[in-house]
């Protein structure tokens, strides 16, 4: 597949399906080829899908607060699998409870994510960023 292929999914034991459906729709509308692996997706499933489709980016959603535990080590696993340079985004309610956003963001950037989004972000924002990061248009 081409330059516009991305993998989306909801990581861990998380079953929030609505936002995932909207992201799929919005990125498809924006011209991306969306490989949506759905909810309850493991790190391995994200990586497998990215390798199989030659995706340029992985967009990880997490709505249930366990994102911190679920996302840890994803960058390292990508490196081990030979896709160490792939773009990684994360977004949603990434931690349990109401916390300051900046430290949460820092934590995920340190984990190797390229961009991190707080709850309530509209798809348009991530679309704009991803186009910039992939040098599209």
């Amino acid at each position, binding site marked *: 597949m081409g330059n516009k292929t991305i993998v989306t999914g909801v990581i861990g*034991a998380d079953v929030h399906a609505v936002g995932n459906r*909207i992201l799929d729709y919005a990125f498809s509308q924006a011209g991306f080829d969306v490989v949506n692996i759905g909810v309850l997706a493991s790190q391995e499933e994200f990586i497998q899908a990215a390798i199989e489709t030659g995706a340029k980016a992985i967009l990880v959603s997490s709505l249930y607060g*366990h994102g911190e*535990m679920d996302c840890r080590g994803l960058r390292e696993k990508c490196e081990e699998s030979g896709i160490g340079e792939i773009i990684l985004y994360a977004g949603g309610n990434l931690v349990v*409870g*109401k916390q300051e956003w900046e430290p949460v963001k820092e934590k995920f950037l340190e984990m190797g994510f390229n961009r991190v989004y707080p709850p309530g972000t509209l798809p348009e924002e991530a679309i704009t960023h991803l186009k910039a990061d992939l040098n599209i248009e």
Partner: protein
Amino acid sequence: MEVLNKKWSMEKLMSLRKEILATWPTGSDVEDIDAGIEYQKSLPKSKNFAAKLLHAKENGITLVQPRAGVALVNEHIGLLQFLQNEGQADLLPSTIDSYTRQNRYQEAEKGIQESISSGRSLLNGFPAVNHGLENCRRVVESVNVPVQVRHGTPDARLLAEITLAAGFTDYEGGGISYNIPYAKNVSLEKTIYYWQYVDRLIGYYHENGVVINREPFGPLTGTLVPPCISHTVAIVEAILAAEQGVHNLTLGYGQCGNLVQDVAAIQTLQELSEEYLLKNGYENRHVTTVFHQWMGGFPQDEAKAFGVISWGAATAALAKATKVIVKTPHEAMGIPTKEANAQGLRTTKQLVNMLKDQTLPLTNELAEEKEMIKKETRAILDTILKVGDGDWARGIIRAFEAGIIDVPFAPSRYNAGRILPARDNNGAIRMLDTGDLPFDKEIIDFHKKKIAERGEAEEREPSFQMVIDDIYAIGKGMLVGRPN
């Protein structure tokens, strides 16, 4: 394996039990099934969920219940006590963490350990299985009101064994409502079978004089679910539970936001479920209702969130739901602090108290809405029984396969996902596309007309964009997602 709606023998339950209790070490604590029953009998009536619900129903009171659960036992007890004392909660929950819901006890254990070492809860709920019988009993003993298990677990057999033996008196979920919105790859055969186990266990408690209340999860995916869809699932689960010996049921519904539709939904849920239970031969069943405050996206701003919470509280009171499940001003940010949780409870308590002497009077609009919900729900239910050749379990499985029942936005691959809901011009939930629901022309035309009215008002063709606009609307302060 074909699953039928037929009461299990005790032998079947007891032979399976061994295997279930062996799936995690704490299972061995509950091997003596009658010890759990004895413990339940030692608890005061004030801690019995079913009794408190029936008393509320008889007195026209709407009870108030939060969601709440954290990783560690002492912290969880502290949280529940806070919600009881500072939040004035009438009923308490123990919300189970998401790893336990997927039976990933190993990961839950890791979450417990990390929560201890980091000094904050890294789990989004209480891992009851890992904590085991004695710890769960400490929870029940530490508070003065009934406690319910709230979760989202497709296979909740071990969780049920431990928590029921520990004195919890209400158990949320069901083979459909905890599968379709909570799993991706688990077949309905499996989950209905898992939940027949749970229901049979509760039936055994009932036969031995301990009344455990059961609550199918009403809101399903919580997003633009038409009342006929959630009613159908609730009523089928009520029938499946009743067959296994469950006598006390609380059926649920998630707020749609339009007052008339919400009141109509709660009233028809009560009426239809009693009708179908009786029609199917289940006598002496007690049905109460639960109204879930707004399950969709919340405004980030706490003041606005209080507005959304309040509207749910007011609607629950005017609809005379038996209880209301409360959101918090932190909803948009994920799991709330205990203070925010108590605030949501107090806001709700103020409204259900203020409005307890008022109802929504029956109007033409309300009568029409009730009539439509009943027609739609009966159409689906009667088709389910037909395609099941007279068996509700077989019927619901086949119905999901055929899209005869279809839950919007569900993650499960066993759900057709063909219907498309959207709001009409007054904010009531209708269907842009009724998919393969077994509706006659009158019902289909009704939905078409309602959606067309909105399309005209907004000068646009109804499409998936309308659905997306509706999903984002509340966060922007609106109910109907109008174009700018």
